[in-house]
């Protein structure tokens, strides 16, 4: 195992007004890790995931990518912001994200969706990006939809396209925010199969999910969040078969019923 984690989150706190949703969460992801985050809604798992690429600004705590720490500053009103916009851009172009609601850009075809950021953000040439994009669509099994618009595809196909968009960044890690929660039950399987295949290929991933079987079978580390804290973490086989905390026992019995 590499000595420097790809991604290191230390003691992350986040408040929305008076409500403190994250009470100091830490996480280390090494190359090839598949980390699943479970917990009931409101436990802060999505907020934590969004803090990783700074879609939410953590009020406290450190983030480092490959040992480079993101620099923050705090103003007089105690609002935190980043110091260097380029550093944030760099972080975001190396950690890609898959959303619950897909969030494909509706005015672009699937292929355009996939190659837009590689071209505009990573400055790849158009032919290079095109080949890369087609390869990514091939990988998720929707290469025939390259010229379709997202609005005319099933949820499962859209989420596969969103995964292809994430892959085309050739990221060091991919963040999944409840990738199957917005899908019809019969479409969940195809998307999970795609993510499972990526895991087998050694893609580093952090997955917020309600799919307990998926978390148990695919990830090598599981975090259980409760009220903004890590209640329990560890090897999924152990965690799911013999949960130590009462909270996790309760959560699993209701979630796996």
């Amino acid at each position: 195992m590499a000595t420097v984690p790809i991604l290191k989150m230390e003691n992350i706190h986040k408040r929305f007004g008076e409500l403190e949703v994250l009470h100091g969460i830490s996480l280390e992801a090494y190359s090839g890790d598949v980390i699943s985050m479970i917990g009931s809604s409101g436990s802060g798992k999505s907020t934590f995931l969004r803090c990783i690429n700074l879609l939410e600004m953590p009020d406290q705590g450190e983030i480092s990518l490959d040992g480079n720490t993101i620099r923050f500053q705090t103003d007089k009103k105690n609002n935190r912001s980043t110091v260097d916009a380029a550093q944030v851009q760099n972080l975001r172009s190396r950690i890609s994200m898959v959303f619950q609601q897909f969030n494909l850009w509706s005015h672009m075809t699937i292929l355009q969706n996939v190659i837009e950021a590689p071209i505009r953000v990573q400055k790849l040439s158009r032919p290079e990006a095109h080949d890369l994009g087609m390869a990514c669509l091939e990988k998720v099994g929707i290469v025939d939809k390259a010229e379709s618009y997202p609005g005319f595809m099933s949820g499962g196909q859209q989420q596969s396209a969103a995964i292809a968009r994430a892959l085309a960044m050739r990221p060091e890690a991919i963040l999944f925010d409840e990738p199957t929660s917005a899908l019809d039950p019969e479409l969940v399987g195809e998307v999970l199969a795609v993510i499972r295949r990526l895991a087998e290929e050694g893609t580093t991933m952090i997955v917020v999910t309600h799919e307990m079987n998926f978390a148990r079978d695919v990830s090598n580390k599981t975090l259980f969040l409760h009220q903004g804290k890590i209640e329990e973490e560890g090897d999924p086989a152990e965690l799911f078969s013999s949960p130590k905390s009462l909270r996790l026992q309760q959560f699993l019995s209701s979630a796996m019923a």
Partner: protein
Amino acid sequence: MLEFLIAQIGQWLGEDIGASLAYISNGKHLAWYASVRYTLIAAVGGATCAVLFGLLGAALKQSSFLPFKWLGDFYTTIVRGVPDVLFILFFPLAFEKGVEYILAYVKCGAENVAATTGWPPCDAAQWYLSTGDYLVMACVSLGIVYGAFAANVIHGAMMAVSRGQLEAASAYGFTPRQVFWRFKVRQMWAYALPGLSNVWMLLLKATSLLSLLQIADIVQWAGRLGAANYFPRVGLVHPDWRWKYYLVLFLFFILMTMISERFFEALQRRASRGMAITGSN
């Protein structure tokens, strides 16, 4: 060429119609037809300004910097309430006075300005406006007034753009500027065009106010040509025919409306291609 053609048609159709055709193709009438260009220039120029002011106003309204936001809100609330007739009269004259005032100080010198009571203090400060100058100012005036409407429409349309998609753009490393132009503004058109087509119609109608700025536009010509026409040598050519000439203007504006609708339908199809909203595909 045109005269020859009309003469030919006149021969085929017979004397009476021939004479009518000859009458409506005389010099003054040709000048009337040509004055359509002022209307079109004012409409297109005004619309371009309106979209620019609209984008600027909408951007101001969304600014997190409060004075900018107030300026944007002030623009859309106040300017929308000013009658366009007033504004078209006020803005060019105020601008002209402003320019002359500056010219007076630069060209004539401050001591001259103080010494003379009349206006202008020296000839160099006199600004004679040509039709072209007035036309530019008409475009800007129309742009300011209808830009306030456009700003509201564009602001609303920007709000309708999916937040999730903008967030995705940020998450993939696009800069705030890229997110604004490549995603927010790009998708905004699909929601804004129905509203903007209304603003365009209002603006097109307002071009009939051009004659207020001494521009010999279609409305002014129609009034002149339609008035009872009497030549000492020929006698009464025609009595008060203004209603006929204004009828032609009616038809012209209806035609423009129809063309505009076609145009906006095509734009709408293009702007909302792939987007699952009304009017697409």
